[in-house]
């Protein structure tokens, strides 16, 4: 059969692309990465006296905007013609769980007394690292797993050596390792949505 090679290659390509189609399209990364970076820089400005910003109000606004935005994106996504995979559903659950965990940690750090504020940056970083590892494993994208390692290494460092410097550092990390991957994922999802022929 002369076309067996081509047929098998086409089958594999279609299967891989369809699995990837259910992966995150990066829009949530763009939203949360940008908001987090702004929140961190605002907090740094408030704590150093560079601006009259109350971190509690700032993070209240960041979290409210983030969750409203996520809800809106979720509604839009639910109406978009797509495919459904178990991996895609797991991924959504993992990132929602990560978001709720981080929101609770942030609230406890800013309003309660159970989480020391100086540990917040490190904790946020290691939790995000876990979610990136799951994303990389479920979507088969090795580079996302490498990003998980970066978040963990930085988070470990921030937990062992806490300080105000962690705020701008985490803001830069949010831009470099959440917003930038979000751009990559978004571009890939746009390319995938173009019609193709078999």
């Amino acid at each position: 059969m002369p076309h067996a090679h081509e047929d098998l290659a086409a089958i594999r390509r279609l299967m891989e692309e369809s699995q990837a189609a259910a992966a995150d399209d990066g829009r949530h990364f763009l939203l949360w990465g940008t908001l987090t970076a702004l929140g961190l820089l605002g907090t740094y400005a408030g704590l150093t006296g560079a601006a009259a910003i109350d971190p509690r109000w700032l993070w209240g606004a960041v979290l409210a905007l983030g969750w409203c935005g996520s809800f809106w994106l979720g509604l839009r996504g639910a109406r978009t013609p797509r495919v459904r995979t178990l991996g895609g559903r797991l991924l959504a659950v993992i990132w929602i769980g990560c978001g709720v965990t981080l929101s609770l940690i942030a609230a406890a750090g800013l309003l309660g007394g159970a989480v020391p504020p100086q540990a917040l940056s490190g904790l946020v970083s290691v939790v995000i690292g876990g979610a990136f590892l799951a994303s990389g494993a479920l979507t088969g994208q090795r580079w996302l797993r490498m990003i998980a390692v970066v978040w963990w290494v930085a988070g470990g460092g921030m937990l062992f050596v806490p300080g105000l410097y962690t705020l701008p550092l985490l803001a830069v990390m949010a831009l470099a390792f959440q917003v930038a991957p979000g751009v990559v994922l978004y571009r890939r999802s746009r390319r995938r949505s173009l019609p193709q022929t078999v």
Partner: protein
Amino acid sequence: MSRPREPLDELIHPRIRLAAMSILAAVEEAEFTYLRERTGATDGNLGSHLRKLEEAGYVEAAKSFEARKPVTRYRLTRQGRDAFRRYVDQLERLISGGG
């Protein structure tokens, strides 16, 4: 003595059907519009191929309305998954020369 070569499943073999089955094998379910985009087939052509797969019991369709628009989702049945796996195994055997 080698086993006699099993013929490839003629129901899966046509290109559009093979593409649709490949996509559905990788996911839980896919909308008609997604299958159309990925296969590059026309509505009528894809619809007739999917109907054949449905009649064979390889795929099942579920129709619903979302935002007042009709949406048809397809998924592979267990029988369809088994048939697809057999088809891919046969192709691999052909390539390795064991078919």
